[in-house]
């Protein structure tokens, strides 16, 4: 019924820790994510969450298996092609924000557009719009160390959105925030998901956060333990409105 955004099939990721030993982290894992979905991947540490995220984020290639993102087969790509995929198709939101410390909020948001080759004017305009979207218009010229944790994460979300990615990959985005700020960040994800239709994959070990998403995928020992559609999930259009200012 809906379009497939991401399709992972029989994904295997092995690490060689000196022959003949090898460590199989992901074991024949398959997962499909539809366009516009907001899913969460949960699992205890050691379950293969990070490895899966690296592969989904095109930071790493699978050992075997297929990974198709927005129609493009990732497993066959060169390093430079992977860079392009990360640049245009994937928006990263990290637990520890990973903002460039010497760049202002605005410059941080411009960065992916810089690598994508947009002109200075285009970058500036779009970065300003995105920062406005997350309510950071007053702090655009501040350096990351002048911002609070919640503010940093909002800048990071703006940055993740800057090249209109196919998916946003959020790795424990509230892990370094207090619960109130964390909730604010989660609401922002919902807003982006609702208003812009961006597919979001939230990776967390926090079941409470996962409860807020459309579908919960639980990993254990490199396999999918369960995939549950969230009966409590509902689209609250009243809350987010239909602000399509960016499209």
């Amino acid at each position, binding site marked *: 019924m809906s379009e497939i955004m991401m399709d992972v099939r029989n994904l295997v990721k092995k690490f060689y820790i000196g022959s003949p030993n090898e460590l199989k982290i992901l074991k024949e894992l398959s997962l499909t994510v539809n366009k516009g979905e907001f899913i969460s991947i949960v699992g205890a540490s050691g379950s293969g969450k990070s490895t899966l995220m690296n592969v989904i984020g095109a930071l790493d290639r699978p050992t075997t298996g297929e990974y198709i993102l927005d129609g493009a087969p990732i497993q066959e790509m060169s390093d430079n092609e992977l*860079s392009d995929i990360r640049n245009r198709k994937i928006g990263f939101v990290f637990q520890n924000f990973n903002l460039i410390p010497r760049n202002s909020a605005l410059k941080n948001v411009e960065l992916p557009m810089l690598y994508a080759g947009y002109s200075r004017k285009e970058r500036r305009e779009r970065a300003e719009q995105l920062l406005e979207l997350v309510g950071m218009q007053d702090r655009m010229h501040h350096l990351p160390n002048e911002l609070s944790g919640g503010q940093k994460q909002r800048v990071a979300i703006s940055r993740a959105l800057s090249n209109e990615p196919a998916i946003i990959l959020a790795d424990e985005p509230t892990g370094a925030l207090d619960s109130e700020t964390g909730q604010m960040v989660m609401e922002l994800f919902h807003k982006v998901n609702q208003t812009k239709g961006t597919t979001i994959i939230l990776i967390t070990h926090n079941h409470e956060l996962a409860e807020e998403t459309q579908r919960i995928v639980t990993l254990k020992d490199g396999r999918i333990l369960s995939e549950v559609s969230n009966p409590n999930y509902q689209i609250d259009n009243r809350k987010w409105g239909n602000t399509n200012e960016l499209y």
Partner: protein
Amino acid sequence: MNFTENILLALAGLRANKMRALLTMLGIIIGIASVIAIVTVGNSLNASITSSMEDMGANSIIVNIREKGDDSDEIGGGPPGMQTTAVAKPDEEDLLSEDDIETFTSRFSDKVANISISHGVGSAKAQDGRLYANVSVSGVNNGYEKANNLELLTGRFITERDIKSVRKVAVVSDKLVSNMFSNRENPLGKEIKIYDADSIETYTIVGIYKYEPSLFSTSSASEKDIDTGFYIPVTLAKLDATTKNYQTFTIVTKTGVDATLFTREIEDYFAKIYINNTKWEAGVMNMESTISSLTSMLDTVSIAIAVIAGISLLVGGIGVMNIMLVSVTERTREIGTRKALGAKNLNIMIQFIVESVIICIIGGLIGIVLGLLLGFFGASLLGYPATASPSIIVISVSLTMLIGVFFGYYPANKAAKLNPIEALRYE
């Protein structure tokens, strides 16, 4: 990725670590500054020596009667201001008479264009009421003009007839003219009074030559008080002289004559004449060989210092590489983030090479400014006009860029090759 963005990024990085950047640049600054300073001083020294020597005539050969065993090339009674105080005084018969010079000239008439003889009278003052000019009076012959490359502005030089008739005429410098005559006056034909210790003499000005400051006139007098040559017929100068003979004379060779070979011929000629003289002999030297030996000496010194500067640049380059490696390690997380956001290996590589080149170029520019200041200061201390060499500045800038690329490559490559997953995880 945008190139100017890289430059801005590098500059921002340097601003964030000013002290570190400056210390890193120090090696480059010292290296470039010393190269520039040495070249500037060396150039001005070289130019001054060469031009002074050429003023004296590059195709001149100087014959100088000197004490036996004294191999120095010092010239007694040479150009004004350079008379050496001889310890021993030669007797009249040790010196060269006019006839001796005449015989010599006719013997080598195929090679000699001119003979210049001069007799220094001494310093004196030209005065006319409140107007005055310091002069150094020399008796000269008609060959002096050519041998010393005097540039006659107007009038004529001392002629053979002036000498024969012992006329009271003088050729003066334009400096004297500007000191003593108004612009509207034509000084030619005017009389001028010369005051020395015990007499006043009046001469008629017949010619004006262009005054060129000489390397050898290192007087500290103000511009207005500088001694300039005041040339009168040699016979007139010799009237009161104790000796009628000459210790030195200058030969201007005809064009096409090999100065080195001719010098040897002259040496042989005078060696025969002085063979029985126990105390005195004739020293013969030509300007060309003197200039080339002087400049080659300067070149050797320059090369030695350039080698030291080169070592300083090498050390500076290694310092840049070291600090770039530190910078790559410090910014591992940033590199990981950039890669996650879509930076290609080449983007990262260029970012770090640009940073290293910027460090080197800024260091180089500081070095050039410092070197020029030092060079000009050094040249003025030695009393020579400083000449900055544009080519060495261009070479310096290119050299620093090259150092930046060369020593920045390894750290930049290391940064580019970082695994993004590990870089993101780096604490």
